[in-house]
Every structure is written in C-alpha cells, then in structure tokens.
C-alpha cells in the first residue's frame, strides 16, 4: 500500500532535480599545456599541430564536469594528423582545379567551380566534425554520438544557402537555427537524446534588436546582445531519455558578460597574450556556472548505445576553415 502511494506521488509531482555543471581547469595548468603545445609546434615546424589540438581538447573537456564527473575527450593526435593530411589533400585538389581552369584561360568557370566546391565541402566538414568529436567524447564511460545523415544535411545546407543568398542574407537567421537544430537534435549521449528548438523568426528579431541597439548605444548594448544570444542557445537545448528530461537555463546577465569580457581583454593585453590561458579558463568557468540544469532524469541509468568512429578529417577541415564548433 505504501509503495503504491509513493509511485502515485511520483507521477503527480515529478521530482525536479538540479544538476551541477562545473569547470575545474586552472589557468596555470592550461598555461602549461598551451606553452608545451607552442614549443612543440615551433620545433616541429607545425607538424605537431594535430597533437596540440588533441591535447587542448583533452584538457578542456576533461576539466568540464557534470555532477562532478568529468567529460573525456578520447581523440588522439594520430587520428587528427591523418585527418589533417586528408584535409590538405582535399584543399590541394580544389585549388588544383582552380589553377587548371586559370591555366586553360577559363577563370570564370574555374572560380565558379571553386566556390561551388567550397560550399559543398562545408556541410561535409561539419558532418564529419560532429561525428568525430562526439564519438570521441564520453561521460561516466558513456559515449556521445552524432546520428545526422550526411546527405540530408548536404541537401538542407544547399537549400538554406540558396535562400540566404536570394534574400540577401535575411534568411541567415533561419539557416543558422535550422543548422543548429539539425546538428544538435541528432546528438546522443548513450540513450539520452538532445533536442534544440530555436526558431529563425525569434532569432532574427533577437539579432535585429541587438544590432540596432548596439549601433545606437555605440557598442555598449553588445554585452546584452551576447547575453540574449547565449540564453537563446542554451535555453532551447534539452535532453531526453524515456520520458525523463533535463532543461537548461542561463542565469547570465549583460553585466556579467561585460565584466567577464572586459577583464579577459585586460588580462590578455597586459600579459602580452600570455594570459590567454587564464582568459579561457575564466570563460569556461563563467559559461558552466551560468548554465543551470534542471529536470527529472536519472543520470545513473544511461546506457551505452553509440559506436566508435575515428575519422577526424571533418574536424580538421572545420579547423582549417575556421568554423567554430557549436556546443
């Protein structure tokens, strides 16, 4: 009888739990990693770059914790090096085609093909990057994964780019939300599914307002714009598992962003750039402490579901194209 009552109660009032997201990386530890990366990259004339990138991610992921258990990045320099070489070959071929057409005195056709290939490579690179990066991330031994379909993303991407071009960039807000929605909604952590529900119209209004007010206030409003963007990204993301969920909330204010960004700028400038490590650890600390997680999910019962995937080409391509990884 008592047990039944308990079950009844649970159904009526779902027990909302808070989950702690935190960052434990120290500036001086990160400084050591960056300096050693720098030294080895110079000494090896740049060939250490993929290993440096792996070390960097290992530190940043490994210093971030959910409920005091750290995330792990399992990617290795070797995997990234192979991806790095493949990336160089792919870009070499694209530039080679451009040069060939210039040599054949058909520069217009050459440049058209060049841009077409460049745009075509973006969704492929993003797809590869998501697959690799997530399959190499784990928490409590549970692997993350990205289950998006490359062809579907490819077609969608072309459609969105097309609309963005014919609307002179206005569709860009919709494109960004559709892309983010597609990518993040295909992320898994074991049997936990991620969902992103941000929409273009809201995002467009938010950006329009942010842009205009930033202009009027000579840039001062930009910190409040950041705050709105951060909140919009964070609060539209949620996690689901068998009817249980976790919702995210941002508690950052414009003033918080102002303080964080200004102090970071001062730190980096007055240390002639050497304080970069502290600026990053402070930023990570800021972000994790300003995101609040709440829900009824039992984090002790997540099951392993995702496969291993070790091709880092997409990750290296996005790195070379300087596309930031969302999340």
């Amino acid at each position, binding site marked *: 009888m008592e047990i039944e009552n308990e079950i009844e109660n649970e159904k009526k009032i779902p027990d909302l739990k808070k989950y702690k997201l935190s960052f434990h990386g120290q500036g001086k530890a990160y*400084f*050591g*990693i960056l300096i*050693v990366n*720098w030294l080895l990259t110079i000494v090896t004339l740049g060939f250490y770059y993929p290993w440096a990138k792996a070390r960097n991610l*290992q530190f940043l992921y490994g210093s971030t914790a959910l409920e005091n*258990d750290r995330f792990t990045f399992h990617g290795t320099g070797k995997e990234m090096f192979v991806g790095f070489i493949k990336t160089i070959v792919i870009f070499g071929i694209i530039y080679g085609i451009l040069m060939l057409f210039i040599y054949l005195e058909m520069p217009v056709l050459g440049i058209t093909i060049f841009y077409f290939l460049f745009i075509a490579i973006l969704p492929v690179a993003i797809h590869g990057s998501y697959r690799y990066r997530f399959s190499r991330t784990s928490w*409590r031994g549970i692997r993350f994964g990205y289950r998006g379909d490359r062809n579907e993303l490819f077609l969608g991407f072309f459609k969105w780019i097309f609309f963005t071009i014919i609307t002179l960039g206005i569709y860009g807000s919709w494109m960004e939300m559709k892309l983010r929605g597609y990518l993040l909604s295909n992320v898994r952590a074991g049997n936990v599914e991620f969902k992103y529900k941000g929409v273009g119209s809201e995002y467009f209004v938010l950006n329009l307002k942010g842009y205009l007010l930033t202009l009027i206030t000579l840039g001062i409003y930009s910190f409040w714009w950041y705050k709105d963007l951060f909140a919009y990204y964070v609060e539209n993301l949620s996690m689901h598992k068998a009817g249980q969920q976790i919702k995210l909330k941002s508690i950052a204010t414009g003033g918080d962003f102002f303080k964080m960004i200004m102090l970071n700028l001062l730190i980096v400038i007055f240390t002639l750039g050497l304080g970069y490590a502290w600026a990053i650890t402070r930023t990570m600390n800021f972000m994790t402490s300003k995101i609040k997680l709440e829900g009824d999910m039992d984090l002790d019962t997540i099951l392993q579901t995702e496969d291993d995937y070790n091709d880092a080409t997409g990750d290296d391509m996005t790195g070379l194209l300087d596309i930031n990884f969302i999340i």
Partner: protein
Amino acid sequence: MNKTSGKYFDGISSRPQDIELQLDEINAELRFGIYLNTTNRWPLENISFEHIGDSLEIRCKSNLLALIKVIDDNFAEEFISILKAKGHISWYQRIIRLGIKIHLAIAALILGAIIAGYLLFIPWVGEKAVLLIPVHYDISMGQTFYKQYVDNNSIDNKKTKYLNLFAAKLQLRNTQKLHFTVIDSPTVNAFSLPDGHIIVFTGLINLMKDYDELAGLIGHEVSHVNNRHSMKMLCRNLSGYLFISAVLSDVNGIMAVIGDNVHNLQNLSYSRQFEQQADEQGTQILILNGINPKGMTDLFTRLQSSEKVVVPAFISSHPITTDRIVYIKKLIAHSPHQYVYNPTLNELFNKLKN
C-alpha cells in the same frame, strides 16, 4: 598501504559502482573488486590516467570506456610516483607536470628566441631576398605606382624639364635611368620610386633658397633608388610579417595583433636606417660634384622650420630633423671637400623657382 576506495564505471551504463582498489607494486598491477568476489586486474603498463585537480581518473587500454575515479590525494601521489618509477609516464606528462615556473621559463625562452630570430634573422633574409628579386620587378612596381600617382596629380611640365636638366648636370652614381617629375602642389615633400622616378613638389622647391639644397635633395632621393630601399623595405616587411604570423597566430589572436604592431614599429626603425643611409650618400654626392655639402643641412633646416608638428623620433619614419642636421654636420666635418660656384646649376635652379 596503497589502498583506497573509488568509483568504477563499466562502460556499459552510467551507474557508478563503489569499489575498493589496491595498487600492487610487486606484480605491477591495479586490483579492484566488483561485487566483492570478482577481482579485476589492470597491468600498470596498460594504464593511462588523468589527474586534474583532486580527481584521478584511471583507464585501461583493453577497454577505454571503463574508468575508475578516485578522489584521494595521498593515493594519487603514490600511484603517480610508482608509475613514474616503473617508467610508465610519458615524456609529455613529465613536461606538463614540471609546474608553472618551468612553463613560464619555457615561454620566456620561446619569446626570447622569437625576438632574437626576428631582430637578427629577418633583416638578413630581407637583404638576401632583394638579391634574388630581379631589378625589372622594381621597375614594374615603380611604374604602376607612378602611373596611378600622376593620373591623380597635375604635373608642371616646364619645371619638370628644368629639374631633369639640373639633374643631368650632376654625377649621381645611379644604376638605373632616372626620371624627375615636378608636381604642382603646396605640399612640402619629395619621394622616389623603385624604378628611378623621383617626384618633387613645388611646395618644397619654393622653400629652397640655393641650388645646393636642391642638389642635396636629389642626392638623397637617388640614394634610395641606388640602394633599392623600397624593395628592401618590402622584403623585410613581408618576411617579418610571415615570421610573426607563423610563430604567433597559433598561440592566440591578441598575441598576433601585438606582434604585428611591434613589427610596424620595427619597420619605422628600418626606414630610419634607410633615411640615414640616404643622407650619408646624398652628402657624398654633393662633395663628388663640387657642391657645398652645407646644402644638405640647409635643406633640413628649412624643412624643420616648415614642420608644424614635432613628431617624436621613435614613431616618425624620418629621423627627427635636428638629429639629422647634427649627424650630417659631423659627417661633413670629417670628409675633406672643396666646392666652387656652379653658374649653370644656379641658372637652372632660378628657372625652376619662377
């Protein structure tokens, strides 16, 4: 002894399992029991670990997803020292564990090497690169600039003719054909292009009182052309820029920006070196042509009186005029010279002035 408790995640579910673990130094393995009766053994040689803050995470190569988490500083210290003693710690982890002081020293060392490389290596590369670049490249570069410049400014044809006649009377040690152009403008300025085009503004000519000043100006500008100063500047600029971005841009954006600005300041100092060289050789040209070298100092005195704003030497590309006058006076005092009045030059100079 080397015993502690921790949590074990089996890589199948996210459920934490409480474990007791023991570090066995003799058998070189880590032992831990799950459900009290089954004992797992992880050989130390297959172990990888991460020690961030107070938490130690241990993994085994046979199953990279399973992990043991221990929060026990004493155990962590002992665990790491045993791994170290058995040689299971990579060179990378050794460097990382050296601590902030050593890392700061490494940073200082790299920065020092970059500065030394920049100050010693780049000017040398610049000089050598110029030798590899054929002169016709200087010529086409100068011509392109000249065309654009002349299109947007009005040439004084009569004065251009007189200036060319004036220069033709001088021995200029030039390696390239020289073309002089007078631009009708109140600006007090003159400059040379790498292809031998030398442009003088009427504003500067009007300021001069004697033909030896004009000869001094020509000597100075011709020396820039003779020494390929423009191309040298370009080579130093480019090689310095490439060097700075190669070593700094991987670190972070701000460091690269700082590097670029330091590089720009350094370029100004290069350009001051070139100005000084042109002053020296210009003065020698005056002496060579039997013209009073005082023309050079007179020219600068007039420039100085026309200068409205005093720019500090470290940010101005021309060495501050007073410094230049003092330097040239010293130079003249140390060089034996004779001069005679040259009526032809004087006549041409007067025609130019009118």
